């Protein structure tokens, strides 16, 4: 014993002075009851505080129909949720210290936040989350599938809830990426708020600083930067609601999207969930001169064998520019459907003249097609 503690003391001496907090701060234990430093919060269990907020609802609820929310009866099931954690790398030592759940009631967004004010309260904190996890809810998040859901599962398991049913998840990251990914490149929530939702956060705290801020709160038990963390967290949840309804509104009114890439993205998202409104978006884009929309339509009509529409699209594309894709697709129709290999050949031959402009793959493909057409012609 003497040996080990002696060695520890040497280590203490070797350690640079000033790297640690004062003994006073270290010794502080989180308050497990009132008085609370902030108004609106109340203790619901030792070391666990809660508050409820009511915000104006960011949407016209009656307009909801269709894209992500298939009907308005889903509205009461929506739970917008978000967690703040003690670290970003996961693992058993990372815990959730702040959970927030938002639901829509009438014209209002009701948010409840649950805060763990010190580690010993974690079992009670987790218990306090259970009532929210009802399996008939639809949990709306931003990257919840990738992060928050796993965090929650980890904590539940550690506290002995091995088989808790998880609510269904609607992770807005994926539709958001689909729509705005190409134009915005990075799709973190902050960027979406700023560039899509027009939300300007004031006095916000950077997400990466939140774990450190929580540790400071634990040491000092002073509100300090935690005020900013809880405010940040409220905004995260409000933004989820705004984003969801922004996507729904946008879906009803695709022209409101300022750039073609985003409109195409929206169309692709709709295609993915079998929403036929996608087609009118692509048609409109093609008419406006967007060739990429034409390509999507070609593969869509081809897969459904809608030949009339397919021909129309190719004709529109031709009016724009007789590019490689358009020519090849037209040649395919001539060859396979119209059975006119000569006409197909006459489309392809000029293409082969421009060898320098073709990629190797395209060139080989053309050569192959050419030989087949020539065989067919000679067999005629």
């Amino acid at each position, binding site marked *: 014993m003497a040996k080990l503690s002696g*060695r520890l003391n040497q280590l203490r001496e070797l350690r640079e002075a000033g790297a640690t907090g004062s003994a006073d701060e270290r010794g502080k*234990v989180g308050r497990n009851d009132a008085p609370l430093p902030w108004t609106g919060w109340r203790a619901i269990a030792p070391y666990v505080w809660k508050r409820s907020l009511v915000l104006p609802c960011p949407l016209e609820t009656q307009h909801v129909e269709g894209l992500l929310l298939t009907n308005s009866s889903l509205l009461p099931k929506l739970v917008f949720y978000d967690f703040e954690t003690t670290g970003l790398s996961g693992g*058993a030592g990372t815990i959730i210290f702040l959970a927030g759940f938002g639901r829509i009631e009438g014209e209002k967004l009701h948010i409840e936040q649950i805060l763990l004010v010190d580690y010993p309260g974690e079992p009670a904190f987790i218990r306090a989350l259970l009532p929210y996890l009802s399996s008939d809810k639809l949990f709306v998040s931003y990257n919840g599938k990738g992060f928050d859901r796993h965090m929650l599962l980890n904590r539940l398991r550690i506290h002995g809830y091995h088989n808790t049913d998880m609510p269904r998840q609607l992770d807005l990251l994926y539709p958001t990426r689909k729509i705005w990914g190409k134009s915005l490149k990075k799709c973190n929530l902050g960027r979406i708020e700023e560039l899509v939702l027009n939300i300007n956060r004031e006095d916000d705290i950077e997400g990466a600083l939140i774990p450190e801020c929580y540790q400071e709160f634990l040491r000092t038990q002073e509100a300090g930067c935690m005020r900013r963390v809880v405010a940040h967290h409220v905004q995260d949840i409000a933004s989820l609601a705004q984003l969801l309804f922004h996507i729904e509104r946008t879906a009803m009114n695709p022209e409101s999207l300022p750039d073609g890439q985003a409109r195409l993205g929206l169309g692709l998202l709709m295609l993915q969930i079998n929403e036929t409104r996608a087609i009118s978006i692509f048609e409109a884009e093609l008419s406006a001169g967007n060739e990429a929309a034409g390509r999507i339509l070609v593969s869509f009509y081809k897969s459904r064998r809608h030949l009339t529409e397919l021909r129309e699209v190719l004709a529109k594309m031709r009016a724009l520019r007789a590019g490689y894709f358009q020519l090849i697709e037209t040649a395919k129709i001539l060859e396979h459907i119209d059975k006119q290999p000569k006409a197909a050949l006459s489309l392809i031959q000029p293409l082969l003249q421009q060898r320098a402009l073709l990629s190797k793959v395209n060139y080989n493909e053309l050569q192959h097609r050419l030989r087949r057409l020539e065989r067919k012609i000679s067999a005629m």
Partner: protein
Amino acid sequence: MNTNNTIIEKLKRDPQFSSQVSRWHTLPKREGIYSPIPDELSPKLQELLRTRGIEQIYSHQLAAYQAARRGEHVVVVTPTASGKTLAYNLPVVQTLLEHAEMRALYMFPTKALSQDQQSELNEIVLGGALPLKVATYDGDTPQSLRVSARESGRIVISNPDMLHAGVLPNHPKWIKFLSNLRYIVIDEVHTYRGIFGSHMTNLIRRLKRIAEFYGSSPQFILCSATIGNPKELAEQIIEEPVTLVDQNGAPAGEKHVVLYNPPLVDAVQGIRRGVVLEAKNIALAFLRRNIKTIVFARSRLRTELIASYIKRAVKNIYTDNERLRIESYRGGYLPNERREIEKGLREGRIHGVVSTNALELGIDIGALDAAVLAGMPASIASIWQQAGRAGRRNNMSIAVLIASAAPTDQFLVQHPDYFFGRSPESAWINPDNLYVLIDHLKSAVFELPFSEGDTFGKTLKPEEIEDLLSYLEEAGTLRKSAGRWYWSGKGYPAEEVSLRTTSPRSVVIIDTTGGRNEVIGEMDVPSAKELLFPNAVYLHRDRQFLSLELDIENLKCYIKESQLNYYTDSVVKTDIKVLEIDNSDAHSDCRVLSGDVLVRSQVAKYKKLKFGTHENLGYGDIHLPEEEIHTRAVLMAFEAATRAAEAMEAVDPEIREHVIAHIGTLIRNIAPVFLLCERSDIGIAERIKDPFTKVPTIYVYDTAPGGIGLSEGFAEKRMQILKAASEVLSQCACEYGCPSCIGPDEGKTELNKKQAVIEFFKIWLSDDPTVQHSV
């Protein structure tokens, strides 16, 4: 094998060869001891064994099976090729077949060994269509397969590093596996010694803690090569009583073990022909008779040298290099290069391999017929393992052990009775090394909070654990609240700890020849400072490189191919500060103190040595930041009124400093034989007037931060070591000191320093009745 026979007879009759042999030892062919396959084995499993041609099992396999099935922790000691995998697969597979929910974890020290094992198990499981899913889970497992390994792997094969950084910190994901964990198999347990073993005990402490949390208490089956204390080591690692199974029932072919001392080329200076050239010649003699040969070299550098000399000797474009393919093999090659060489050896496409101890482990490289040891590994256990690489099957095999000039080698070759008569050394570890312990406690708290009074392993008292946790709390890494400690540090503690080296950081080696930018290997930082300093010549397989820049901060080293006629060897300078002395005993020969020290070492210079002749072509300077370690040391202080002080009085003042330095060299050379460690695991420093003790002092310290018990081991075996040192010295044939004893005499005085050191020992050890002096 016939060819083996012929060459063995030929070597025996060759007067030049046999005159240098100090002992030709023949281990007779041994018949196997068999037992019937246990009746209780599931019919499917029995059938499967029979389809693989196994009608009965070896006695030790049955003993291991029975002990494991009785619920005891077992350690099986087995030489190479004695069927150890069946010893643990039988009880594990049988139990898992009986209980559909149970799981097992297999741990191998390297990924290469896991791959071998997976294919072996697949044969058992898939071959008989047993309903057991076997999954490998290591750094190479694709993300897409990890979930199914965790969820449905009945036997998961992994390594300690993955358990440490992947599994335990994410234990909630492993809940199904961990709650049903029934067996843990730890293979090659003898490799878990020193710092690696100290980490291993702590890793097992963490694993047991998490298993207990999920309500399981797994049983351990361990396998070890022959070492002095397999049971003790196993018990130290799992901290539970263990049943020893060491009666080997496997058959073995006749084996010749030859101790060979290269001829003296300069009797005055005590210089013998070098091991590199001797090993080359002996290996060539084998290879040219189509005998599959493995050469073990003591360092990466020598491995490359010997391989290139052998290749040069057979180089001939008309005969396709005599149709012999020889490869070198060592750590630092990329994994796919290593796999390719292993495969080539197994399939017989590669005829000879020159390796460091990297191939000493049970990696499957097929049957080899001859082993040539170019210099003795530091332990008798290792010597037997390397020699055991030849003769896996029933045929005759030979191992030639070539002594280098190193004093330990000379000691062993000149004392064959000592070598053959002695059981291999014991392996030991120090799980309570403060640094190792702190690292694992951090991870353990990350995995689950600690309560006051919680234990961690069996050797630490709860107060000690509390003391450590408080220390971490002061550092801000943990937070204590309501009687429990919680993780409050940043990130992921396991990421910062490597189980293998004391330094988790490694340098990436980048080849920039001709505008390339290609990674060809990596190396830990302390080794990089000694081998990759700017202007160092670095050898990698067939190629020679010059180090251009060593960027320690960014962990990169840039090299380019070169054609120099020399290689380089660095010289390290050390400085020691005593932090605290916890023990001080006055002996009649000197005062012995032990305590904690701070060692600062710096690679300051390097030598250029010519290829072939190894002559010194000059020195260069190295400018690299120093390394600092906090470790354990033993001090021998030549205090007034002790025999050592008296001996020092008798030495001419002009050479006192040299004499103490020579004694240090001698001790450093001899001690590893007694401490189952590498030469680099201990450090020695000699001071003619030590600032701490104020008298002449020799320090012996652990080079691993926090110590792994070697300095304590030295204090315990001090008299034995000094006695052996004195014997080596007086029996050495040289006149003025040579690399085989006190090191060559580099000073320019008229006085014979070797004689002075002999005189010194005479007085120093004079009262000890066990010491006999022969001059």
